[in-house]
C-alpha cells in the first residue's frame, strides 16, 4: 500500500535556529503515529508542518501520494485537535462543529445530517446549543474531536489533546481515542510528551530530541530495544536502569562486571552478548529484575543485593539498590518483604538486557 503520509528530508529553521533536522517518516493508512519527546524537541512544530500551519524550510511532504509541501491547510484534507481545544468562544457547539462545512459551502441538509451523526457518536447531543464557556474540560475535548470527525479527513492530527485534563479524565479520553481509531480505521498523528500515552495509543512511535529523530518503531520495539540512551531513559516508568559496567569476553558469551560500593563486584554472564567494548552501559528494565526463583530461562541469573529503599506502590513494590554507582530499581510483587539495609536475592533476566556505548550512547546489541 502507498503511504498515506510521507515526509522526506524535512528541515525547519526559525532564522538561524534549526528546529527540525532531516525528518523522514512514512506511515500506512490506518496507522496511529505518535510523536513523542521532551518539551522543545520540535514535535509540535513537526505537526504544524504536517498541517501546513508552518512552512517548511526544505524537504517534501506528501499526503496520500500528492505533494502537499506548498499547499494551504484547508486543501490538505486534514483535521486537527488542539491542546487548548481552540473552540470558537462566541459560537454554540453546533456552530463550532459545522463552521468548517459552512466555510466550504456545504449545503444545510448535509450539515445537519453530519452534525447529527457526530453528536450521536460522541454523545454530545444535549450540548449542541451551549457555548464553549459553559462546558467542562472533558466536554470541550469531545466538541473539539467532533469538529475534527465531521470532516472525515485523510489524516487526523492531535496536538497534546489530553494534557489539559485531570488524570482520571485523561485515562478515559485516552481509551476513547483508541476506540475511535479502531472503529474508524482512520490514520492519526498524535503529539504528546507523555510516554505512557505514546505506548498505549500508537501503532508506530517516533521519538524526537532536539529536532532529530532518535528512533522510529512499534511501541514494543521502542520499549524493548531502545536505539540509544536517550530513548532508553525517556520511555518507560520507572525509567530503564542504566548501569555502568565492564565487559570481558569469557568462555561462553561475555562476563559483565558491575562494581558495588562494598564487597566484591557483581559478575553476570551473558551467553548471547555480541562483541562488546570494555566499557559499556547496561540497560535493564525494572521488571527484568525479579525476586529469586520467580523467573526462569537461559538468561536468568541470581544476584544478592543490598536493599537501600523500598517503595510500595500498590500493585508493585519497587526496591532500590545501588549497583555500579547508580540507583537501580527493581519491580517486585506487592507482597514481597524487603527491608532497607538487608540483603535480598534477586534474579536478573540477561536475555532482555540492552548494551549501550558510553561515549556515543548508541545501542550495541
Amino acid at each position, binding site marked *: 500500500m502507498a503511504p498515506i503520509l510521507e515526509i522526506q528530508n524535512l528541515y525547519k529553521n526559525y532564522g538561524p535556529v534549526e528546529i527540525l533536522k532531516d525528518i523522514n517518516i512514512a506511515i500506512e493508512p490506518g496507522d496511529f503515529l505518535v510523536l513523542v519527546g521532551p518539551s522543545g524537541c520540535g514535535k509540535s512544530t513537526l505537526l504544524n508542518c504536517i498541517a501546513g500551519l508552518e512552512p517548511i524550510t526544505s524537504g517534501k511532504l506528501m499526503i496520500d501520494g500528492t505533494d502537499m509541501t506548498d499547499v494551504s491547510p484547508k486543501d490538505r484534507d486534514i483535521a486537527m485537535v488542539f491542546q487548548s481545544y481552540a473552540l*470558537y468562544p462566541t459560537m454554540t457547539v453546533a456552530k463550532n462543529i459545522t463552521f468548517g462545512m459552512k466555510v466550504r459551502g456545504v449545503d444545510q441538509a448535509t450539515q445537519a445530517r453530519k452534525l447529527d451523526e457526530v453528536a450521536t457518536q460522541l454523545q454530545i447531543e444535549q450540548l449542541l446549543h451551549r457555548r464553549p464557556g459553559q462546558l467542562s474540560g472533558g466536554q470541550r475535548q469531545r466538541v473539539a474531536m467532533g469538529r475534527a470527525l465531521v470532516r472525515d479527513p485523510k489524516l487526523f492530527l492531535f496536538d497534546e489533546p489530553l494534557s489539559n485534563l485531570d488524570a482520571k479524565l485523561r485515562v478515559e479520553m485516552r481509551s476513547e481515542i483508541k476506540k475511535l481509531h479502531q472503529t474508524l480505521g482512520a490514520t492519526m498523528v498524535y503529539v504528546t510528551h507523555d510516554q505512557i500515552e505514546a505506548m498505549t495509543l500508537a501503532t508506530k512511535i517516533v521519538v524526537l530530541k532536539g529536532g532529530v529523530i532518535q528512533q522510529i518503531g512499534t511501541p514494543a520495539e521502542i520499549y524493548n530495544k531502545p536505539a540509544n540512551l536517550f530513548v532508553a531513559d525517556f520511555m518507560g516508568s520507572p525509567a530503564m536502569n542504566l548501569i555502568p559496567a565492564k565487559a570481558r569476553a569469557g568462555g561462553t558469551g561475555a562476563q559483565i562486571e558491575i562494581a558495588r560500593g562494598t564487597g566484591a563486584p557483581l559478575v553476570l554472564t551473558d551467553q548471547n552478548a555480541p562483541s562488546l567494548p570494555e566499557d559499556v552501559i547496561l540497560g535493564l528494565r525494572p521488571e527484568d529484575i525479579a525476586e529469586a526463583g520467580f523467573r526462569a530461562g537461559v538468561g536468568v541469573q541470581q544476584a544478592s543485593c543490598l536493599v537501600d529503599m523500598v517503595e510500595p506502590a500498590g500493585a508493585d513494590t519497587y526496591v532500590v539498590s545501588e549497583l555500579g554507582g547508580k540507583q537501580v530499581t527493581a519491580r517486585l510483587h506487592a507482597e514481597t518483604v524487603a527491608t532497607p539495609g538487608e540483603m535480598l536475592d534477586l534474579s536478573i533476566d540477561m536475555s532482555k538486557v540492552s548494551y549501550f556505548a558510553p561515549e556515543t550512547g548508541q545501542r550495541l546489541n
Partner: protein
Amino acid sequence: MTDLAYPSAKKSDAFGKIVLRWLLYFLLGIFALYYLMPLFVMVTTSLKSLEEIRTGSLVALPREVTFDAWRTAWSGACTGIQCEGLRPYFWNSVMLAVPAVMISTFIGALNGYVVAQWRFPGANIIFSLMLFGCFIPFQVVLLPMARLLGMMGIAGTIPGLIFVHVIYGIGFTTLFFRNYYVSIPSELTKAAKVDGAGFFRIFWSIFLPLSLPIIVVTVIWQFTQIWNDFLFGVSFSQAGTQPVTVALNNIVNSTTGVKEYNVDMAAAIIAAAPTLLVYIVAGKYFIRGLTAGSVKG
C-alpha cells in the same frame, strides 16, 4: 467582615476602625464636593438671568429658573458675525466625530488583528512605529498636514478633518485592539485555518464577535478625543465647517458689550454633554474592557 472573622478583637480596635472609616468618607466627600463645585456653578449660572448674576452670589441657587440662556446658546449666540448659536457647529461635530470614530476603530481592529495574530517579519517594528505615532505632539504635524490636505483638495472641509482624526487615532486604536487580540490563543486562528477560513472570514466570524468590550473602550476613547479636539478643529476648518469646540471658543471670546455668563455656561455644557453622556452610558464597560483580556472557552 473583619469583625465577623475576628470576634475576639478588642473593642478599642473596632472603635478605631469606625473612626478611620468615617474620616475616609468625610475626606472623599470633601473631594467630591470640590470637583463638583464648578459644575454646580455652571448649571446654576446658566439658569439665572443676567440681572440676577450681576446682583446675586456666585454659588447661590437661582431665584427664578429661566432657560433663555440655553435657547440663546443653542440657536442665537453670536460667533463672530453670525448669530446662529452652537447648533450648526454641534452638527458639524457630530458629522465629524461619528464617521471618524467608526473608521479609526475599524482600522484599529484590523491592524490589531494582523499585528497580534498574523505575525510577519517586521511586525514588531511596524507596531512600534504606530505606537510612536501616539506620542507625536499635535503641533508638529500641523504644517505638513495642512499641506497634505491642500494637495488632496479637502482642506477646510469636514472630510478633511475626519481624515486627520482617523490618521491620528490609528495609533491608539491599533494599540487597544492589538493588546486585546494578543491574549487570544493563536490556536484559534490555526483551527479556523484548518477549517478552511481565510483572513477576513476569521476576522468577521471569530475575532469581531469577541471584541465588544474593546470596541466600547476604543469608541469612548476616540469619541472623547475627537469631540474635545480644539487644535485640529481650529487649524483645519473654515467658516461653516468648524466643530463645536471652536464655536464655543468664538462665542465666549467674541461677545462685545456685556459678558453673558449664563449663555457662556449653557454653551459650555452643551459642548461637553455628548462626551459626558457617552461616559455615563458606557463608562462601566470602559473599566471592564480595559481590564478584560483573556478569553475563556
